């Protein structure tokens, strides 16, 4: 028997993640599931830092909580249930909105509409400097993937074929993300009023609520099946 290596937690913005619709799974029941993103990243686990905007029970008394976590580019949707006790316990103590770091497995739902979501393994509250570093790190990782799309390894080629990826779009998203944290630095440097983190997040929420693209449609899902493994 070969011991499966621990999957690396990839750094990815919500925009790239949410545009992913392609599942890769080797044969064999226990093979890990990967999601191939439009920039050719094959990921099974991700690490994100963003604002936890909402948590609510997916269905009354289901014990499964739906969460929405925002980064500067969009919103990650996730489910936390009793199969992830560590994440579940932390989530109970966190009142949104709050900045959080989440390590999660990626999942893909193939119903009438294909969509990706995350299944957190651990959640912890963090400060804005952690978020800033994550944005920079994730921007760098994304830029690297954009470069690779031009050179074209196997995953990149496949991604190009499936998504006909518009690289300019992703460059712009990365740039916008970097600009949002740059604003923070400039404010700090000018020693203007210290921005109330809570306010900042509130604004983000308002902005995000306007985007109905990420609104989650209520469908009759058997959630427990999705979350088991």
């Amino acid at each position: 028997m070969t011991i499966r290596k621990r999957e690396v937690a990839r750094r990815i913005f919500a925009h790239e993640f949410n545009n992913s619709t392609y599942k890769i799974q080797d044969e064999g029941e226990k093979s890990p599931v990967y999601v191939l993103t439009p920039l050719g990243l094959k990921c099974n686990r991700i690490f994100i830092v963003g604002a936890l905007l909402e948590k609510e029970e997916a269905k009354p008394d289901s014990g499964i909580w739906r969460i929405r976590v925002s980064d500067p580019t969009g919103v990650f949707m996730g489910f936390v249930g009793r199969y992830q006790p560590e994440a579940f316990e932390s989530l109970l103590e966190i009142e949104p909105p709050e900045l959080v770091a989440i390590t999660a497995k990626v999942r893909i739902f193939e119903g009438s509409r294909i969509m990706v979501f995350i299944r957190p393994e651990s959640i912890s509250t963090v400060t804005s400097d952690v978020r800033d570093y994550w944005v920079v790190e994730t921007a760098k990782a994304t830029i690297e993937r954009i470069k690779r799309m031009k050179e074209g390894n196997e995953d990149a080629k496949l991604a190009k074929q499936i998504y006909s990826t518009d690289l300019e779009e992703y460059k712009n998203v990365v740039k916008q993300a970097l600009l949002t944290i740059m604003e923070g630095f400039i404010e700090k440097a000018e020693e203007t009023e210290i921005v109330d983190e809570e306010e900042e997040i509130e604004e983000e929420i308002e902005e995000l609520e306007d985007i109905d693209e990420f609104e989650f449609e209520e469908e009759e899902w058997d959630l427990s099946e999705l979350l088991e493994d």
Partner: protein
Amino acid sequence: MIEKRIEELTQQIVQRFEKSGYKINAKEVLKRLKLLMLEFKVPENEAVRTTVNYLVKELEIPRESLAVESEFVRISDITKPNQWVSLKVKVVQLWDSNSPNISQVGLIGDETGIIKFVIWAKAGKKEVEEGKSYIFKNVVTDSFGGRMQVNVNRNSEIVEIEEDVSLPPREIEVVGALISIQQNSGLIRRCKICNRAMTKGLCPIHGKMDGYDDLRVKGVIDDGENVYEIILNEENIKNLTGIGLKEAKNIAEEFLDRTAVLTELKKRLLGRYFKLIGNKGERYLIVKNIEFLKVGLKEEVEELIKSLEVQA
């Protein structure tokens, strides 16, 4: 079948000598190989070696001038590019290769050091496995990006060996996020005899034993490309959180629950970025020094934005 193989080997030997500027008689080589392998049933590598040795003596070729059996060297001795060498090593790590020209790439090591290796797809070698030891014969040293590496080409040979080549204690620096803290972290009890961590008052070796309290964190640092399993000791933890063994015991008493320490440590450490230096063991990175990552990002962000504008 075997006749064909003998012809191949003959070609190889002739080529090796040619490379060093000696023309030898292929028929002679073929005859000797046939005698050894068909008549005397000598194994292939022994037959080749014997034939080569015979030719070297016969033609009075100085051994150094023949690039047939490169000298065995230690990894720490590799300082110049374009040298043919042989190594006795363990495969430390295999990396993902992005290039179709590369069969395998990763790290190999011996007692003296660790070096990157590249097996070219053209070399047509059997794949090596992580953790196994091999003789890397006739590989070429190279420098790439200011660091030495060895390349495995068509003339190289890789032979697996039984011996377990030991590796040097390996100090590395890592910057990454602590994405997981294991359940057996926090305020633990260790066996008085062997210092192993005990679960529910039981030592895995000595059974029911007297124990003593200790503080540790077993966790995972992830930089988005690689995963490092780390162990933090009491000193590391105290430096980071201000919680040492004494403070941990206080927390446990206050909450009447030893796991309260773990909860508190998770709150302060999980999901944060760290810069750390440690020694790579077989599995864990034993941390010598660890601190919260503090970097000025402003300039880097400016540069990244600029680079995106140039590309666009």
